[in-house]
């Protein structure tokens, strides 16, 4: 039984944030992670406050969070209608766990530029 992950973003220009005056790498990262989840068969819905305020108004939990704690509560992440993260985008591993997906290999392995290093060695990137 597949789960549904809903992300309620703060007001922003585009999902990756590349249109704004500064790049927030976190936005590029979460866009990539959500795309990955979709690829794993998870139903992902994403709503931008400045483009789809109706989705925020139509979700009672989101409404309540906004009333109680203001826009600082965004982003809100819901799994099957329950709030699982507030004010932050969970890491890919966390999202995978919430969706009940077993991650084949750790995400860090994707950084092919770095050879594996022992703990304490200086980082190359």
């Amino acid at each position, binding site marked *: 039984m597949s789960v549904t992950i809903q992300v309620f973003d703060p007001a*922003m220009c585009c*999902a990756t944030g*590349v*249109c704004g*005056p*500064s790049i927030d790498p976190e936005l590029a990262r979460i*866009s990539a992670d959500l795309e990955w989840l979709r690829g794993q068969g998870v139903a992902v819905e994403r709503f931008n406050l400045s*483009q789809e*305020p109706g989705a925020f*108004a139509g979700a009672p939990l989101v409404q309540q969070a906004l009333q109680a704690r203001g826009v600082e509560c965004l982003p809100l992440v819901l799994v099957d209608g329950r709030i699982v993260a507030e004010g932050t985008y969970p890491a890919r591993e966390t999202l995978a766990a919430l969706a009940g997906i077993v991650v084949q290999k750790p995400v860090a392995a994707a950084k092919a530029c770095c050879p594996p290093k022992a703990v304490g060695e200086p980082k190359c990137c």
Partner: protein
Amino acid sequence: MQHLEATPRHLFFTGKGGVGKTSVATATAIALADGGRRVLLVSTDPASNLDEVLGVALGPSPTAISAVPGLAALNIDPEAAAHAYRERIVAPYRGVLPAAALRSIEEQLSGACTVEIAAFDEFSKLLGDPAATAEFDHVVFDTAPTGHTLRLLELPAAWTGFLTDNVGGASCLGPLAGLKAQQALYAAAQRTLTDPTATRIVLVSRAERASLREAARTAGELHALGVGDLSLVINGVFAARDLTDPIAVALAQRGVQALAEMPPELAGLPRSEVALLPFGLVGVPALRALFTGAGDMTPDLSQGPTTANVPPLDALLPELERRGHGVIMTMGKGGVGKTSVAVAIAVELARRGHPVHLTTTDPAAHVQEALGGPVAGIRVSRIDPVAETRAYADEVMRTAGAPLDPAGRALLAEDLRSPCTEEIAVFQAFARVVDEGEAGFVVIDTAPTGHTLLLLDATEAYHREVERSKGQVPEAVRALLPRLRDPEATRVLLVTLPEATPVHEAAQLQKDLDRAGIRPFAWVVNQCLTPLVVTDPVLVQRRAREAQYLGEVASLSERMVVIPWSADR
């Protein structure tokens, strides 16, 4: 008038700033209406002066012009369009979502991207949705100066391509699912633009080399966009009546020579010529006379020319060079000579031993051409939207894109292809150039007023966004607005001509700058006949008219200098 033969439904008037696009477009609209057609005249210039020319206060929907039966006019005001766009999104949720949430939506929708899209939506409706203009036989577009207009004409194709290719499901315009209607509209606008039976584009030029060259470049770019039906209007053609007047002879000579050297891109186009008139083209009777020459147009000579001793451009130099570094920006309506004033200042600073970076934010400007050739001590560059956008996209992929997996990088690359990216890329390049003024002299020739205002609005909107931003903000971006507001760091020169519309537009620009907390350092009145002796009747009348406008400038400015008219501008 060639451009009035077998007129298609849509007519566009474009050209370098100050060539008389508004006069020619308006006179054309009046001629069509006088011929019994129902005509809608539309200004797409963010700094439209259609209101002043017609003597009617216009809004975003058609206003009937009572002096011309059959004619209605409107202004596409980007800020007003963006406001309406915000209202459409926010209004249904007042009282539903908390005020703070609504405020954050409004702030987000105040950026350059929203402003451009909102204005573009209005433009697309007029061009792509026949129902929006069903009550008119013709829609005549008076456009902003070239750079801005080319961008507007490119957008239907750019957005259509982006919406077709984008698979990510979201874009700056909103969720793609809701955009099918928009996509059909943009595609229809693009079809209309490229259909020679539906749209004619009229290039307006003066009988001057620079103006004709720009028209030729525009013709080339329009061909590349697939626009089929082009025609040419030469405005302000002057024949000397008094051959003992050296200024008149030089002016006429310049025109004859420029037309003889007509660029090949223009030589084959249907061409009309409009004579230089001794009076200002404000009001319906004057505009009717533009094509017919009829009517009593005797000017008022009761006001003699001013003898006030106004200083020349060089008088500004001691104060400009005092700190040994800083930003000097020339601003004003298109065609008033911003580029030549910027070049003159840069040359004078270099002559005094200061290294200078001379650059421009005008996509259509050609500073290098104006400079003539390399000058010791002057480095020339331009903010090229295409190159800046590519560099910005590469930089984002190199930084934010680096840690992502291939699918994530593809998603990021896709968002970077959005036409919005150009706005931010140009803005960041602008911030970097202003930053250079901390260490040396930077002379910036800005784009014509409307475009520059949007850049400054973007600066304010981005400034607010930067203050609450979590991302990495370059220091140059963070410091941009405070630097522009610091009269010691940035000297703004408002360039104008001794004529009604340029002076009134510069006055409006001064007000807009004031709202942004920016105070012009000086006004430069370019191409003045006042310091010269003229005897040709048309020039005598034009010189007499200057007194009034020099007086207006004197009362509006803290410092004022004049540049005498010259044939080799």
